[in-house]
């Protein structure tokens, strides 16, 4: 049993200099065989394992991660959470996740620092205005909270934005989702890992999958750097490396892996209490609880697995940030990094069975999957346990690229992040 985290456990452990905290998860060696193995210990993979154990009673399962858990895109993203997507299928998927976020700290007994500070999306040209108004209406029809704001209302909600009409891309309006916000990314991975571990899930770090063994049209197990693991069900949740895993099984996916960058500034006193995104000029900003500005840039256009992006991308983003927020002109940037995002042609994810029995893929989240972490784990667990998708992820199958039934969330839904 795990000790419960509370104000009392905090005080108690303070007396022993915080040296006696219980381990949040074990460090087991892999067993010979599991009922299911999840490949990839990011937020989505860990959440999948958690819900497999919790809702489907599958406890003889493991998560294998080639590095340390949460070190992929889960620990590299700008943590924006929202559900104001355009199409019904996406609204269903992302709002399912948002509803779980709202109670997640309590459920996991782990403070994931979910903060519903609102997310504002700015419009910089007439097409933006039309798209954002259309999306606001679509959101409302789907029961998602959405407001359209005039330029004055944008200024009122976030006074440091430069709403002068003389700038290169003036602010013509915006949308606001008040239930949207941010969460602490590492804590999400750690909270799910702790919860899954408690129910008996093996979380195996520094264990890279090197091959997927098939027997005809069924999976048999995984070749890993810690030996062969036998299993009849494999759920691959490997973000930017999904195509690499698919290749091991002889499958092809409609994905391209590209670098996406972010950066943080030196910490300062509270100055921006919401999240502001601007797709047209590719700049996103919020402020962490530590006080750093968290800034998201755009993707590079070439395929790369190097976790480094190009300099001109960051430069372009900072140009836009400075024009929109002249007050930041003296800020120094402390760190900059890249993550490899798996982009689908329709900018929607894949949560699906494949043509190989027992092989499931959860990928294609691209630049915006952090927000979906709890929902994705829940629905993927359902798909693996029942060998059938849940109605909320049925539209996100792999076959849509054959049938043409795409969920086109490019541009129109303010899709970046």
């Amino acid at each position: 049993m795990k000790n419960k985290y509370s104000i009392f456990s905090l005080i108690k452990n303070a007396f022993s200099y915080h040296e006696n905290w219980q381990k949040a998860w074990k460090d087991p060696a892999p067993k010979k065989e599991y009922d299911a193995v999840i490949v990839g210990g990011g937020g989505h993979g860990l959440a999948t394992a958690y819900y497999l154990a919790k809702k489907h009673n599958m406890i003889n399962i493991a998560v294998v991660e080639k590095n340390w858990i949460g070190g992929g895109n889960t620990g590299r993203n700008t943590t924006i959470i929202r559900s104001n997507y355009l199409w019904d299928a996406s609204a269903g998927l992302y709002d399912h996740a948002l509803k779980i976020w709202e109670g997640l700290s309590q459920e996991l007994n782990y403070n994931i620092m979910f903060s519903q500070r609102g997310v504002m999306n700015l419009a910089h040209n007439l097409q933006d205005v039309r798209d954002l108004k259309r999306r606001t209406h679509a959101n409302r029809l789907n029961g998602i909270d959405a407001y359209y704001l005039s330029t004055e209302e944008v200024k009122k909600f976030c006074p440091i934005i430069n709403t002068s009409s003389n700038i290169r891309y003036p602010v013509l309006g915006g949308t606001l989702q008040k239930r949207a916000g941010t969460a602490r990314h590492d804590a999400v991975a750690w909270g799910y890992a702790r919860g899954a571990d408690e129910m008996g899930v093996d979380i195996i770090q520094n264990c890279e999958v090197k091959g997927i063994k098939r027997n005809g049209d069924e999976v048999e197990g995984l070749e890993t750097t810690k030996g062969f693991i036998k299993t009849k069900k494999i759920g691959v949740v490997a973000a930017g490396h999904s195509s690499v895993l698919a290749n091991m099984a002889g499958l092809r996916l409609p994905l391209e892996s590209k670098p996406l960058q972010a950066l943080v500034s030196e910490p300062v006193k509270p100055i921006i209490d919401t999240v502001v995104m601007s797709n047209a000029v590719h700049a996103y900003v919020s402020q962490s609880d530590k006080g750093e500005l968290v800034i998201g840039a755009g993707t590079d256009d070439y395929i790369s697995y190097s976790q480094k992006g190009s300099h001109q991308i960051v430069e372009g983003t900072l140009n836009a940030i400075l024009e929109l927020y002249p007050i930041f002109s003296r800020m120094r940037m402390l760190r900059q990094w890249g993550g490899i995002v798996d982009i689908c042609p329709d900018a929607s994810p894949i949560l699906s069975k494949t043509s190989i029995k027992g092989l499931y893929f959860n990928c294609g989240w691209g630049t915006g999957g952090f927000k979906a972490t709890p929902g994705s784990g829940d629905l993927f667990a359902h798909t693996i346990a029942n060998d059938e998708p849940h109605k909320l992820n049925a539209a996100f199958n792999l076959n849509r690229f054959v049938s043409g039934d795409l969920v086109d969330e490019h541009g129109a839904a303010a899709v970046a992040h």
Partner: protein
Amino acid sequence: MFIINCPFCGERDQSEFKAGGEAHIERPKQPTELNDEEWAEYLFMRKNIKGIQFERWNHAHGCRKWFNMLRDTSNDEIKLIYKMGEKSPIE
């Protein structure tokens, strides 16, 4: 950021170029005879290789010509550049 040696203009900064994705994907010769699976293969499925990959690039802010490149996507190192229409010197 890397320097790219355009076969027409010589060495230029990467910011002048646009990546065009996987190279040598041939447009179907008899489009009317393709079934949905074959269309999906052609339109959407990609190798997305981690390692050495054939790509198309365009000198968008220069001569605007397309060319082919052999690049290691695991470290962004450019191995080879050759003109469109030329047969890949390797394979």
